[in-house]
């Protein structure tokens, strides 16, 4: 229940967030609270504002109004993308964006959690633990034999995994994943679900997804977005039986 310091104890806190593009409200008084260690899935029709919500949290888009707080108190609307990333929020994009010219291992190395200052990066030498970490993540995402291949040569699904691997390398406290299984086969989707459940054990994860089978598999609390605000929230079964949700999304 709301008390006078409602953000306290949350890892992500959005309240009354509005974003408009040329008068069109992509987010309209959106409020959402994610607890530390929680996994949350966000669903909703195309154009509901799911990606825009992630843009707001990661500093890509400034909201017209509303509060966006990290860890109960850090105002994210005042920080830029790099500062927010260094605070501990990582993101996987809807359209997989890996660095195509760099190898798979180099992509992971760039994501590695370490001092990201310019001079520190110039003189960076990987320690043996850091190399082990890259090797371990390569194994986790199943790309060990692709390590020295340019990322541009990977298949769509492999790029998705590489991006997830980059999130693992960053070792963030909050992960935002925008449609992580789009374009994956059923088997790949199942593997991704297992991986995410594993990852979610010690951090907060927000997953946007259209694939209802995948959402069910994650078994997390579901938030339904529609026209920029929350239409319903709760366990999947409850949400699925909500007639408004069926009308705007599931029943299409």
């Amino acid at each position, binding site marked *: 229940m709301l008390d006078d310091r409602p953000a306290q104890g949350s890892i992500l806190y959005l309240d009354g967030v509005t974003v408009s593009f040329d008068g069109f409200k992509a987010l309209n008084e959106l409020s959402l609270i994610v607890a530390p260690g929680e996994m949350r899935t966000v669903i909703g029709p195309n154009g509901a504002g799911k990606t825009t919500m992630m843009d707001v949290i*990661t500093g*890509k888009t400034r909201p017209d109004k509303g509060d966006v707080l990290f860890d109960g108190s850090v105002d994210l609307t005042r920080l*830029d*993308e*790099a500062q927010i*990333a*260094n605070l501990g929020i*990582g*993101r996987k*994009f809807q359209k997989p*964006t890996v*660095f*195509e*010219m*760099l190898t798979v291992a*180099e992509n992971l*190395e*760039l*994501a590695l959690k370490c001092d*990201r*200052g*310019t001079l520190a*990066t*110039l*003189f*960076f*030498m990987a320690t043996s633990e850091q190399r082990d970490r890259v090797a371990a993540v390569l194994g986790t995402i199943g790309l060990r034999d692709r390590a020295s291949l*340019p990322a*541009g*040569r990977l298949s769509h699904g492999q790029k998705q995994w590489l991006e997830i691997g*980059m999130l693992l390398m*960053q070792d963030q406290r909050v992960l935002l994943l925008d449609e992580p299984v789009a374009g994956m086969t059923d088997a790949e989707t199942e593997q991704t679900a297992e991986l995410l459940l594993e990852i979610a054990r010690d951090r907060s994860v927000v997953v946007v997804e259209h694939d209802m089978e995948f959402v069910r598999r994650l078994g997390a609390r579901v938030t339904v977005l529609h026209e920029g605000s929350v239409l319903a929230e709760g366990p999947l079964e409850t949400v699925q039986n909500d007639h408004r949700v069926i009308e705007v999304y599931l029943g299409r």
Partner: protein
Amino acid sequence: MGPVLSRLLAIDDRRFWLGFGAVGILLLAVVPSLNALPAGHALNVPDYAVTLLGKYLCYALLALSLDLVWGFAGVLSLGHGAFFALGGYAMGMYMMRSIGGRGVYGHATLPDFMVFLNWQELPWYWMGFDSFWFAAAMVVAVPAGLAFVVGWLAFRSRITGVYLSIITQAMTYALMLAFFRNEMGFGGNNGLTDFKELLGFDLSRPGVKLGLYTASAVMLGVAFLVCRFIVGSKLGRVLMAIRDAESRVRFLGYSATAVKLFAFVISAVLAGIAGALYVPQVGIINPSEFSPANSIEVAIWVAVGGRGTLLGPVLGAFAVNGAKTWLTGAAPELWLFALGGLFIVVTLLMPKGIVGLAAQARERLRGRPVPLIEEKRNA
């Protein structure tokens, strides 16, 4: 510094060091020896050719500096001629002041053009330029300062692509107009010339010309290794990542602004040093060095050689300027058409320049498909 040094030297890369050593021997031992042969000898490299090579080496350094930001970070500066000219002016100011009382008007401190303009005393910004080391510091500091300010304003506002190119063109154009004005105190239209000596060495002596050529070759080698170190580091991979997907880099926690600014400032310093080595060899610096067309020409050298490689800009600078020297002798009116045509051909037919063509030919010989990616990242 141990591991850093070992990476700078990257001893394990035998092929690179063999090539680097061979070019070094050619430039620093073979050319001077052939220059020492008696004038009539068939293999003699005449003094004018040494100076011409020295000029090309400075152009190669300028092209290399542009490639660091354009080829690796995707920042197409069309104002690198300005950094080159500023370095040149700083060196020119030192050489003007070291003329001392030997000028036409015989004034002890004022350069001839100031006496001509009836100036009574040296402007404050000419102070200190009687010292070579002060001038050398300015060769580095002035381009670095300008690059820092322009880069900071542009990168912070996330100005990229063609807008950045236009801003840098405007920068060099504005400087050209400013330096054309007599009141600026840099010799106006005529610029700085009639230099006599550098560090006490008589600039008209062939041995001194050979020395300047040698300094240019050594500097190009050092700059090449510095660029190789940057490009081969994790920062180099961040630069390439910025080139491919800048916004993604920010979400990983790197300040793309700071990284690009770093590369831009280093690049401007290298361009300034190139200008400082160039001016004593050609004996003049005037505002036309700031002309926007000059900066565009540098981009053409890089494109012809192959951007995103370290060898490319060096080859491109030699190839295009060699062609220019030849053609402006044979049919000067054709040069601009040839340059324009070359640019179109390279853009359409050889997007990876000479270096890309060479790699393609090598792969064809081996009967393997051309890798689109790897070769781009090797020097």
